[in-house]
């Protein structure tokens, strides 16, 4: 293992200390660990997310005006715990409730649900929306379901703007669910990655191999093959996304009337000719930007061939897997509401425009 660290046990803590020093607009709290907007939230819904560390800038880098109000970082590739989420939600609760945006990984989902239960017992209204946009997985019946990828970034941006506009908690949860059903992603890896605590690569990938459909913790994908060209890889990923059939699954959500968690059937959109989208070409942490632009060029062509127009784009590192080389593509269908909120001003460490 060759890493710029001091001690493997201290990486999350040391990273948080540096993050806090780097940004005056963000407060860092330790034990339990969370980061939040300095000055708190007043008289609107607060937006909170979190997940394992190692995916930076997700989620701490998206804390700030017009996006998240707080983020809970776990240890590297390990879900944060409910005490962190409870403390973060209390710190930013502005009296109008808290929306939690949760990527679909078993640990994240269960810990956020427990946190929501605890907060509700303490009188704070909480909704919890799951993002599961990874089209690499076809099936939800025999797996934990599709994983959360780049649509998370768009959901955090759009919902952050909506919270500032004064959406109430139910409206904000409905918007977040819409973005999830409008967004599809898929990734691939050229190299593996090594967590500091394990010290050895999460999986083995030979010099001439690639893995299509990789998860952000190095979970296995759909196919492993000899490496292909950027154009071929982009074709594979973009076509899978653009031609993905209507995905239907049950997601757990809080039913305020029943006072219990219930399974709700959720169905994704299918991309149609004439659709307009936000596109993300995301590096996994170890991919040169030059290669990502090469992918973007091909993506624009493939989308065009499907009659899908890219209205906005992000090209860079937005949801990473430590030093992994590879790429993930995300397309989120827009409508007037999503585009207006996406274009609204945002000022966070990793995303800023109009402010």
């Amino acid at each position: 293992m060759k890493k710029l660290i001091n001690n493997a046990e201290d990486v999350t803590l040391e990273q948080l200390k540096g993050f806090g020093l780097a940004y005056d607009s963000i407060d860092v709290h330790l034990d339990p660990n969370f980061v939040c907007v300095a000055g708190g939230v007043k008289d609107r819904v607060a937006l909170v997310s979190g997940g394992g560390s190692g995916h930076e800038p997700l989620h701490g880098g998206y804390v700030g005006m017009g996006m998240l109000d707080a983020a809970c970082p776990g240890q590297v590739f390990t879900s944060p715990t409910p005490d962190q989420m409870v403390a973060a939600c209390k710190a930013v609760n502005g009296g109008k409730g808290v929306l939690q945006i949760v990527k679909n990984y078993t640990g994240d989902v269960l810990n956020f649900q427990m946190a929501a239960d605890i907060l509700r017992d303490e009188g704070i209204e909480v909704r919890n929306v799951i993002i599961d946009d990874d089209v690499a997985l076809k099936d939800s019946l025999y797996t934990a379901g599709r994983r959360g990828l780049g649509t998370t970034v768009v959901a955090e941006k759009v919902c952050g703007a909506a919270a500032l506009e004064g959406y109430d908690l139910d409206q904000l949860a409905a918007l977040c669910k819409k973005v999830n059903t409008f967004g599809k992603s898929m990734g691939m890896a050229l190299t593996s990655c090594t967590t500091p605590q394990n010290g050895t690569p999460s999986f083995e990938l030979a010099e001439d191999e690639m893995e299509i459909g990789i998860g952000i913790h190095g979970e296995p994908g759909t196919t492993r093959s000899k490496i292909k060209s950027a154009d071929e890889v982009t074709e594979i990923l973009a076509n899978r996304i653009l031609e993905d059939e209507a995905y239907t699954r049950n997601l757990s959500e809080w039913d305020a009337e029943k006072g219990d968690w219930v399974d709700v059937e959720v169905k994704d959109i299918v991309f149609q000719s004439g659709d307009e989208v936000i596109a993300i070409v995301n590096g996994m942490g170890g991919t040169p930007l030059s290669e990502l632009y090469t992918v973007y060029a091909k993506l624009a062509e493939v989308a065009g061939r499907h009659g899908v127009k890219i209205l906005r784009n992000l090209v860079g590192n937005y949801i990473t897997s430590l030093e992994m080389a590879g790429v993930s593509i995300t397309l989120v269908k827009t409508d007037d509401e999503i585009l207006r909120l996406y274009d609204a001003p945002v000022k966070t460490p990793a995303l800023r425009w109009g402010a």
Partner: protein
Amino acid sequence: MADALAGPKTVTGPMIRAWIETSAEVFAANRGHLSDLDSPIGDADHGNNMNRGFNAVLEKLPEGDDIGALLKSVAMTLIAKVGGAAGPLYGTLFLEGSKPLMGKTELSQADLAQFFEDAIAGVKKRGRSDVGMKTMLDALVPASEAFQAETAQGGEILAALRAAANAAESGMKATIPMQAQRGRASYLGERSIGHQDPGATSSYLIVQALSDAVEKASE
């Protein structure tokens, strides 16, 4: 079958405390084993997480013999300290199990059967899971069923707990040929077959620890 060995008629607060202490010892001893099991189908941290969790449980365990309070304390500490999926699942197990036991300083055999049932119902609901999916439940559900079957046949607490531990061990081993349908292992599909589930293993260890602690206390 009824056990010839005379055991306790109730499970007391000190026995529950001994169970928790035994569990912590067992997780310290099996830390590497559990993480090794987790390596091929998970992220190789289950042993470390359970060991860290139960160490914290011992530090925070309250005084007194209120069994509900003891078990709730276990739940809250595991929730905060274990992380991953195991933290909320074991937290839910102890939290749901503790609810009807608040204020009780000793448990009847029926109380213990109820504890198993409530705990398992909580895990099933939280994990949206059931037996056969290669999870903790593959050890816990057979344990609960064996406890009830032994009780129905007139077996006393210790005999029922031994039967539960044996069933949990068989259930744990039965996860080896299963294909995982929940958690990170489920993404491996068929590649998850042939590996013993680390969650079923830690669940067996906890049931075995209960049986051992009660047996030791009644010697």
